[in-house]
Each structure stands twice: as C-alpha cells, then as structure tokens.
C-alpha cells in the first residue's frame, strides 16, 4: 500500500525532507517507523527509539500501535511547543 509521510520541525531539518510517499507493507505506525530507521543515516538519527517523537495518523495524534491503511497520511514530529 501507499502512505504519505510528513516530517516537521527538527525532524524535517535532520532528514532534509518535508514529505515523501512510500510503498510499504508495515501494518502499524511502529512498523513504519522501524522501516524508516532501517534506512539508517538521517532517518535512524531522527526517528530512533529513545528520542522524543510524536506521531499523527491522518492528522490526529496517535499511538505507535495504530494500524495503517492504503492512502493514510502519517506525520513524525517532536513534542509540540506552540502557544
């Protein structure tokens, strides 16, 4: 299936990309994160476990256990600091 990925703030800067489309069989957000970490380099650096990371699925804050479906929009970003 195809998913649309977005990166924000420090993660966007480290990866050097604000969005990408990806063909994946990852069943969950956790599995998608793992697939990106396996790429190594800036992906591993910014998405590695132990780093403060938040995820949104179709523009709603979500847990790593959330399931992925065709056409989903997934976002990776650091904890929010607005207001």
């Amino acid at each position, binding site marked *: 299936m195809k998913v649309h990925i977005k990166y*924000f703030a420090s993660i966007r800067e480290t990866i050097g990309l604000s969005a990408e489309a990806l063909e994946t069989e990852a069943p969950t957000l956790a599995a998608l994160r793992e697939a990106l970490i396996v790429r190594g380099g800036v992906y591993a650096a910014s998405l590695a476990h132990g780093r403060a990371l938040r995820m949104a699925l179709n523009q709603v804050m979500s847990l790593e256990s959330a399931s992925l479906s065709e056409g989903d929009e997934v976002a990776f*970003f650091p*904890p929010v*600091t*607005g207001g």
Partner: protein
Amino acid sequence: MNPAQPAMPRVLIQTADFDLARVIAELRAGDGRIGAVCSFVGTVRDRTAGTPGSISSLELEHYPGMTEASIEAMIDAAHHRFDIYGARVVHRIGLLQPRDQIVLVAVTSAHRGQSFQACEFLMDYLKTQAPFWKKEQTPEGANWVDARVSDDLALAKWGLTSLPGGNAG
C-alpha cells in the same frame, strides 16, 4: 457589523498580527446573554533563562490542516465541558520578534467563572496538543524550543493527558 461580511471563523492561523479588541467585539456582537469575556494573549519573550536580549527572533512552524482541526476539536471540548457561549483562537505562524503577540484565546459566558476556566483549559490544551513548533534565534545560533513538563502537568489538572508519557516526556 457589515452584513456582507462573513462571521469570523473560530480558529485563525495567520502570519499577520491580531487585534484583541476586534476579536472580542466580533465574539460579543449582538449576544445579550453574555456577561463575561475572558481573554489570554501570549507574547514573544526576549530572553531564555533570564538573560535579556538572548532571543533575537522566533519562528513558528505548524502542520497545516491538523492545526486547525485539532484546535476546532479543543473548542468543541471546551463547549462540552463549560457553560460558554463562544470561543475564538488566533495563532500566528512564521517569523516573530520579541514583544510580538503570538496567540489569542477569547471566551464568552454568562458569568466569569466558566470563561476563566475555559480560557485556561484552551491554552493548556493548545500548549500540548496543537502541532506548532518554535525555533529561537540566539547569539549562539538557532534552537528548537523543548516541550515543558509543566505544560503536561497543566493539562493533567483537567484530568487529561496528551498521550501516555505526556507531550514533553
């Protein structure tokens, strides 16, 4: 108000500055039930850790679409939880300078208690749930601002958590 002018949306995300008096006038317009208006304005500090002048500018990034939807959901939650008549949130994005206004929350109700509470609730919610990120420009270079545990604690007092572990955790 000019009848041709559409009502102001509940949520505005904009680079331009805002006028608190105009937002409140629009929120109160024609509503005789209102006996209380409570508002909060957040502004850009010129310092971190008490060093004046250590911040030369502040840049705000956000997640278009999710930002508006998440704040709309917060306002719905405020209406559900408190006896309020209306609420508006304006949040600026882009490049800001020290002393600039960043965020405005305004709420109306019959009596002050519900407006005070709803205004604080909306700010606590916004701090931990709305997808904005601040980057400070300092003499040593640019830094992304870290989330604060105190903001998670502020949300927790309403019986809410952002996610397991909080936003800052």
